[in-house]
């Protein structure tokens, strides 16, 4: 069966968003608040968006593609930083559909792109419940 491509989602990531995320995560790493800190560490000018926030954009792709579904697992490898302000694109495919008790498990491959390259390479499993009336 060919892989099913999910509709891509774009997110504008502002410096304010990155700051807000660092507050939610209570992450006081200066790269998430001080544009100069990223430069010192060779990460580029701007505020670095926290990794969990960026992973969240990929989870949102799944929530949008499969309303009512639940996330069973999520594995992300962070290969490049996302420096705000920028636009990130969340993309993915359903590689395999597996019947399980109570529904279907979807095995997805995902990637978050920023600054013209892949920032996160991820895999996720989503549980899609059977519709009412189905076994």
């Amino acid at each position: 069966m060919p892989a099913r491509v999910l509709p891509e989602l774009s997110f504008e990531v502002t410096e304010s968003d990155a700051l807000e995320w660092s507050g939610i995560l209570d992450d006081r790493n200066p790269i998430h608040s001080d544009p100069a800190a990223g430069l010192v560490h060779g990460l580029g000018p701007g505020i670095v968006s926290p990794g969990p926030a960026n992973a969240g954009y990929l989870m949102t792709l799944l929530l949008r593609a499969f309303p009512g579904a639940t996330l069973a697992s999520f594995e992300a490898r962070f290969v490049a930083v996302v420096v705000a302000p920028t636009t990130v694109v969340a993309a993915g495919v359903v590689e395999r559909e597996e019947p399980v008790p109570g529904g279907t498990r979807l095995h997805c491959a995902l990637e978050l792109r920023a600054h013209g390259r892949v920032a996160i390479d991820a895999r996720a499993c989503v549980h899609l419940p059977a519709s009412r009336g189905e076994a």
Partner: protein
Amino acid sequence: MASESPHCPEIGALAARLRGHRLPGGTYRIRAVESRVVGRLNGLEHPQPHPVFAAVASLRALGVTIEELCALCEFRLADGPMLGEFTASYLARLAADVPYSTSATIDSLDRTGSRRFGVLDRLRFTVNIDAPDGSPVAVVRYLWLLPRGRVER
């Protein structure tokens, strides 16, 4: 911001001391206001807390701050720890206003080299998030990268 080279301790004794080290853990409650903020940042009006709250809970309820976790590894927050990998297994839906309890253990610290960052330590730790009745809700695993910089030999 870091103004001097990162500290680069001898890895063997540090790794041995940290392996299996249990962090204090704590409790975390997803507040409705934070859930709404995360929804807005993701362009969602989602009645359920976003699954990214597994990451939020795991970091907010370690029982130590991120700076203190770095300090355990003899690493300064100002030297820029980076997230390398994040894995979450979800065993139940996250809900708002539930006092989740967490327990966390350092799995390992090892050292490798990076052309970009020089000496790079890799910290792995696991956080279990449980419901008030003790049933597991999520298991989160992290790999953090701690760049130690170039070391003179």
